[in-house]
């Protein structure tokens, strides 16, 4: 696993080299000696579990943190630390997961926000700005109207604007923090194309991702971080997926998907000819106790809208929706009372109150059970509940008073699961349950899902990651533009079959 630095000849020019970089925060060693190098015209993937040190590393390179020891070498120049401005001048650009765009400004205005081209008398030269924007977007091979307001762009287009913004200040080293995590699946190809174009033009890219598939698709080399150390760097052509996973986790992940083992019981959810909010048309489906139903489809195919309708968040136009025999809930509170919960896709804006503690978040949907004589019983009810679920889902750190915003992504996702599972729901709708979650936490979430099904819950799972959908679902229903285009039992479900249905309109009955 330890690989000698393999530079094929001196033809490759090293643009960025980190040597034994370490950084601790109040005693916790976030980075314990990371060495990493980036060649000119290379896409270098950086992988590792949540908490492995990826974000700290980015921030050191971007100049946001000062490392405790080690050196940063940019174009042969050694630095002990970088200032943010200095990093920018050296051509280092970062595209963070959360975009820093002003929605009310145009594409061109956003791209040149920091360095507006000015004409005579210091006035803004919007024609010049527009021209340069077009040149930049052209360089990326992307077509976005420079005058369009950013708020009207899709997430994929906004990401391209972010990339262009980095390039506008002459970034030659581009660090991309999980760029694909925010994208719907049909936008990914465009992202990959942009990355390939950039590489061809001589830019160097550090690509952080949890999706191992795409690393094999676009990266030249991959470095694995674990517990704040770089444990391996290899050309992707010489490494297998299994090797990668094992070195990230530090152990063999044998069976990734637990096998289905429950007999479906009573019908928990019955949907008949349902039309929702002009997005879902004539959908009928059932979910029974003990089974996991996968919903497949492209982004915008109506799966999330259906999921929202199940808990009373989307307007039902017509049709029948029954949860455990009761009619459609009008709001999530009512849905929770009938035993149905939606565990939403975006944990930061839908799942958690970030500025509050683990305890606050986990007990929030469960308060009515924790109250006696109007008061929340802390030691008598709340603390045991929180402890039980943090232990059961192995949330770290386990203390209930930790603010959720200080947890890693995987642990945040577990808190989202905990707050809903503590309500002991019978019908659980999971929208992208493992997005932005590392492999170790993913495996744990899969085990919990299967366990819940075994205990008699019915689970509806929406996922854009086909392998996970195929691995977890007992049945898969495929959506195409708001309609069901087909249903596949587990044995017949293959990636090809699902994709075929997802891209073809259903035959009119």
């Amino acid at each position, binding site marked *: *696993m*330890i690989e*000698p*630095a*393999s530079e094929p000849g001196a033809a490759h020019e090293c643009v960025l080299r980190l040597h034994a970089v370490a950084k601790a*925060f*109040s005693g916790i060693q*976030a980075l314990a*000696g*990371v*060495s*990493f190098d980036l060649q000119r015209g290379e896409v270098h993937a950086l992988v590792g*579990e*949540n*908490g*492995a*040190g*990826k*974000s*700290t590393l980015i*921030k050191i390179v971007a100049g946001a943190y000062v490392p405790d020891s080690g050196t940063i070498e940019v174009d042969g120049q050694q630095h002990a630390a970088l200032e943010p401005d200095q990093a920018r001048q050296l051509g280092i650009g970062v595209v963070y997961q959360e975009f820093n765009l002003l929605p009310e400004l145009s594409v061109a205005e956003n791209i040149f926000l920091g360095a507006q081209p000015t004409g005579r008398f210091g006035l803004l030269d919007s024609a010049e700005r527009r021209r340069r924007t077009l040149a930049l977007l052209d360089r990326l091979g992307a077509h976005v109207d420079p005058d369009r307001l950013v708020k009207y762009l899709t997430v994929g287009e906004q990401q391209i604007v972010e990339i262009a913004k980095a390039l506008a200040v002459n970034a030659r080293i581009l660090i991309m923090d999980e760029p694909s995590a925010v994208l719907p699946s049909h936008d990914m190809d465009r992202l990959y194309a942009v990355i390939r174009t950039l590489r061809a033009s001589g830019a160097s890219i550090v690509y952080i991702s949890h999706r191992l598939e795409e690393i094999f698709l676009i990266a030249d080399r991959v*470095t694995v971080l674990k*517990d704040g*150390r*770089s*444990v*391996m*760097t*290899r050309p992707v052509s010489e490494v297998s997926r299994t090797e990668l996973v*094992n070195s990230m*986790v*530090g152990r063999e992940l044998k069976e990734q998907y637990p096998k289905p083992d429950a007999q479906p019981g009573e019908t928990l959810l019955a949907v008949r000819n349902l039309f929702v909010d002009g997005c879902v048309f004539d959908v009928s489906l059932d979910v029974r106790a003990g089974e996991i139903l996968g919903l497949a489809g492209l982004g915008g195919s109506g799966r999330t809208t259906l999921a929202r309708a199940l808990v009373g*968040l989307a307007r039902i136009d017509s049709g029948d929706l029954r949860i455990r025999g009761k009619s459609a809930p009008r*709001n*999530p*509170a009512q849905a*929770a009372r009938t035993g149905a919960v939606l565990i939403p896709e975006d944990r930061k*804006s*839908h*799942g958690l*109150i*970030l*500025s*509050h503690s683990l305890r606050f978040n986990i007990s*929030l*949907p469960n*308060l009515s059970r924790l*109250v006696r004589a109007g008061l*929340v019983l802390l030691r008598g009810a709340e603390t045991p509940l929180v402890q039980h679920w943090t232990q059961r889902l192995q949330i*770290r750190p386990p203390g209930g*008073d930790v*603010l959720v915003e*200080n947890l*890693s992504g*995987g*642990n945040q996702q577990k808190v989202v699961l905990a*707050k809903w599972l503590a*309500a002991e729901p019978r019908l659980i709708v999971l929208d992208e349950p493992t997005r932005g979650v590392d492999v*170790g*936490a993913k495996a744990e979430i899969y085990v919990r899902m299967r366990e819940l099904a075994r205990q008699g819950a019915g689970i509806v799972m929406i996922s854009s990651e086909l392998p996970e959908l195929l691995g977890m679902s007992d049945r898969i229903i495929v959506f195409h533009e708001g309609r069901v285009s087909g249903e596949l039992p587990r044995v017949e479900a293959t990636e090809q079959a699902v994709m075929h249905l997802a891209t073809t309109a259903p035959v009119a009955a």
Partner: protein
Amino acid sequence: MADTVASTSSAVEVPAARSTSSPKWRLPVDGSIVFIYALVLVVGVGAAIYSERFRDPANLTNVLRQTIVLGLLSIGQSLVILAGGIDMSIALIGRLSTLIVAASFGGRDALILPLIALGVAIGALLGAVNGLIITRVYASPFIVTFGMFSILSGISLAIASGPVGTIPPPYLNMYDATIGSIPISVVVMALIWFAAWLLTSRTQFGRALYAVGGSQRVARLSAVPVSRTLVIAYVLSGVCGAAGGLFILARTGVGDPKMADGLEFQSIVAVALGGISLSGGRGSVLGTLGGVLLLGVVANIFNILQVDSFFQQLILGLIVLITVATYRTSKAST
């Protein structure tokens, strides 16, 4: 590359606990509460050393009694601000309900309890109107309650242009009565503060307030009745406003058409001084109590020292700016 210490056998358990971006987590005790009480203590002790009149026990109980009106309004204001709103009409709700009560008294003892109930009911009703408009129309709380402020000040002027009402003497006991040397009103107010703390920190409604103020979307998805929580917060704010007005009436003994002037701003200042985030969702009413005490002590010192009102305004402004700047920078650094 990869020449660093690498070992596959290391740590089987995944220590995914720490977040790499901000590995520190804050103590559950909010620093702002410590700060505001430290400030109260410093200012209070300083004044006590400097001024004999300030440290007189009679003056100190008086300070406490003088904080009651602002305290009531600040509790109401805390509730709506915690829920992510604001109540610009709280003082005017107090004024209008009190003027109606004062005008209806006619010196009749028998009407004391019914009219207190009426005053509180008017406060609750006006609060409910605020809450319903805000939740039904998704209107900005500032604009809605400011509109209410304007309407109520108009109605108040129509009801009374000068002092109104004959208040029966027993009503004034609300302000005057004491046990030993402690005013009963101070004791009752202490209980109200305790109840407010209990309500916000230990009840389902209180948790809902924080959740709604933190993120309405997350709260709704978490089975929290968002609209109901907001409406109740505004109703309680209206009740607090009315209670404050009724207490002023017990102090002055007459319905004053200028009463409670500017108290909506003072209550917001007290809330901000206490460390409750004006964007909602974080902070504690205990902090608000600190803010109210600070304002009370400072007002009393100004009074004793006969400070020019120009300096009063200036010093108050400085206190507010320094305190809030301290909170912001300490938050930014964590």
